[in-house]
C-alpha cells in the first residue's frame, strides 16, 4: 500500500506539543507523559489556521479554511493520485554523481538524501489511474528544490521513451526550482534531452498530460513542463520561467501578488485548466477516458 510509503517526517508547520501543554497543562518544570503527541496539529502556511494533522491529510493537505494547496512530496503525490495497487518504479537506484567536482555538491547531495530519505528529485514508473495504465513521473520539491540535473533528465527521458515504446499515456507532475547549477551545462542539456524525447513521443501520437504543482520554474518550466498536450495546474501554484525577485529587479517595479500563479497563467492563456487537488484524480481519469480510442469510431 502506498500509505506505507509515507514518511513519518512532516514537512509542513507543526505546533510543538510543549506550547500546547503550557497553556493550561502541567507546569514546565516537571514534564510527565505528553498528552498531546508531537505533530498532532498543523498550521496552514498561508492563513495560519490550526487544524488536526490527520484532518489535513484526509483533506489531501489542502487547508479547509482558505483552500491553500500545501506541497506534497513525490510519495504523497503518487498515493493520492494513482490507483493504490500496481505501481512499478523505474530506475529507483539511479543517483547523482559530481561530474564537475563542484564545490560543496557532494556533501549537499548527501544532506538532501538523509533529509528526505529519497535519492533524487523525481520518481518515475508505471501505474494505473482509474484502471488506465500510465507512465508517470513525479517530481519532489523536498529534494534539492526539485532541481534538474543529469538524473532527473535521464529518468524523465527514459520514462518518455518507455511511454513511446509501450504506447501509453504519459503523466508528469512537475515541481522544480530549475536547473541544478552544480551540474552547470549538463543540467542545461537535460532540457533539450527531455524535450527531444517528448517530440518523438508526440510524433508517435502519444498523450502527454503535464501537471504543474507549486512551484514550477526555470529549466523545468522551460522544457517538459510546458510541453503537455494538456497542461493543468493546481490552484495557486507558481509557474513561470524567471524568478519574481529577478523580474522585479529588471523592471524596477513591484509585481502583483498573483503574478505567475496558476490563475494568472490561466488568464494569460498559458494553461488549459486549474484543478483543485480533490478533483485532480477524477479529471485525469476523465482525460484518459476521452483519449482512449481503442474502440474506434
Amino acid at each position, binding site marked *: 500500500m502506498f500509505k506505507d510509503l509515507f514518511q513519518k517526517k512532516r514537512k509542513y508547520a507543526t505546533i510543538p506539543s510543549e506550547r500546547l501543554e503550557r497553556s493550561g497543562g502541567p507546569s514546565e518544570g516537571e514534564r510527565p507523559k505528553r498528552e498531546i503527541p508531537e505533530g498532532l496539529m498543523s498550521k496552514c502556511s498561508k492563513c495560519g489556521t490550526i487544524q488536526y494533522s490527520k484532518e489535513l491529510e484526509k483533506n489531501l493537505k489542502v487547508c479547509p479554511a482558505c483552500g491553500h494547496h500545501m506541497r506534497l512530496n513525490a510519495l504523497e503525490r503518487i498515493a493520492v493520485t494513482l490507483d493504490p495497487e500496481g505501481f512499478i518504479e523505474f530506475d529507483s537506484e539511479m543517483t547523482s554523481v559530481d561530474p564537475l567536482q563542484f564545490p560543496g555538491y557532494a556533501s549537499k547531495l548527501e544532506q538532501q538524501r538523509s533529509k528526505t530519505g529519497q535519492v533524487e528529485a523525481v520518481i518515475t514508473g508505471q501505474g494505473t489511474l482509474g484502471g488506465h495504465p500510465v507512465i508517470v513521473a513525479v517530481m519532489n520539491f523536498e529534494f534539492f528544490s526539485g532541481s534538474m540535473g543529469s538524473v532527473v533528465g535521464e529518468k524523465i527521458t527514459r520514462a518518455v521513451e518507455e511511454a513511446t515504446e509501450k504506447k501509453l499515456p504519459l503523466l508528469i507532475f512537475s515541481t522544480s526550482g530549475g536547473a541544478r547549477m552544480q551540474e*552547470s*551545462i*549538463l543540467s542545461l542539456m537535460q532540457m533539450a534531452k527531455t524535450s527531444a524525447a517528448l517530440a518523438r513521443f508526440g510524433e508517435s501520437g502519444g498523450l502527454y498530460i503535464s501537471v504543474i504543482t507549486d512551484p514550477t520554474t526555470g529549466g523545468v518550466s522551460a522544457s517538459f513542463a510546458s510541453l503537455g498536450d494538456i497542461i493543468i495546474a493546481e490552484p495557486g501554484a507558481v509557474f513561470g520561467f524567471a524568478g519574481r525577485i529577478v523580474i522585479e529587479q529588471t523592471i524596477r517595479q513591484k509585481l502583483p501578488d498573483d503574478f505567475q500563479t496558476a490563475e494568472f497563467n490561466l488568464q494569460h492563456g498559458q494553461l488549459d485548466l486549474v484543478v483543485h487537488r480533490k478533483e485532480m484524480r477524477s479529471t485525469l481519469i476523465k482525460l484518459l477516458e476521452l483519449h482512449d480510442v481503442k474502440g474506434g469510431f
Partner: protein
Amino acid sequence: MAGELPFEMPLVEMRKKIAELKQFGEEKGIDFTDEILRLEERYRVLADEIYSNISAPQKMHLARHHGRPTSLDLIGLIFTDFLELHGDRQFGDDLAVVGGIAKLNGRPVTVVGQQRGKDTKDNIQRFFGSAHPEGFRKAMRLMKQAEKFGRPVITFIDTKGAYPGNTAEERGQSEAIARNLYEMSMLAVPVICVIIGEGGSGGALALAVGNRVLMLEHAIYSAISPNGAASILWKDASKAEQAAEAMKITAADLLEMEVIEEIVPEPRGGAHHDYEAAAESIRDAVWRHLQELSSLDAAELQEDRYRKFRKIGEFAEGSQESELPEEEVQSVE
C-alpha cells in the same frame, strides 16, 4: 587599441614603453634599435604567454567584450546576400533575435541569432540580446520556413539569457523556449549552432539544439550566468569569477564533456581584434560540418540530433541493476 581587459594590462604597459622609447630616440637622435628589438621580442613572448593561458573568468570578460563581433557583424562577413526577415506573426518583432536568408559559399541557408546592441540605444531596443517569447517564436518561424524549403539552419548564440520580465512571462516565456527545444529536435534539415559570445541558460539553448554545436574559442556556455550562480550559491554576485571557474563554462571544458563538437579558433586575444579572421574561421568550420551532414536524409538528421543530446548526462546506476544484463534492466515490468 582600446578596450583591453585587465589581464592584458602588462602588454599595454609594454607597448607604451616601446612607443616612449622610440619617441625619445627620435627626439634626442639616439639609436635605441637594439633595445627596441629586445623589448619587442620580450613583448612577443609575454603576449604568447598571456594569450595562451586565458582562464575561465578572463574568457567570461572576453565573451562579453563590448567590441566583440555580434551576430549581425558576423553574418555580414560570413554570408552573402543576407536578407533579414522580421516578426513572429503573432505578437511583434523582437529585435533581440535577428534572422533571415543568406548564401553560404553560394548555397542558400537560413541564419538566426541573438543580437546584442552595438551601443546603448541599440542595446535598449534589443534588450541587450535577451529575447522575449516573440523572439524565440520568430526564430522558430524562420527555422520551420527553412525546413519547408530544404535550407540548412545556422544559428549564432550570444545572450545572457531569456529576458526576465513580466511581459515575457505573460506571453509564455517558458512555453516559447520549450517549444523551440521540441521543434528544433525534429527539424528535417541540417542544424549547425555556433556559440559566438555568451551562451546563457535556456535563452541560449532555445537556439542551440543542433546536429553540431560549435563554440568560438573564448565563448562561454552555462546553465546560469556566473553572476547568477554566485548570487544564489554564495549570496554574492561579485564572486562571478569564482563561479566561472567552478562551472566549467569554457569551450575546452564543453568539448571534453562532449556537449560541443568543435572549438573554432579566434584571432589572438579574441574575435574583437580581427572580425574578418573570426568570420573566416567560423565560415570554414560551418561549411565543413554542413558538407558532412549533407549526405544524411531527414530521418538520419533527426536521429543524429537526438543521439547527440540523448547521451548527455552523468549519473550512477544502482549496483543491483547494473549487474543485470541491459535487456533485463530495460524491461522491468
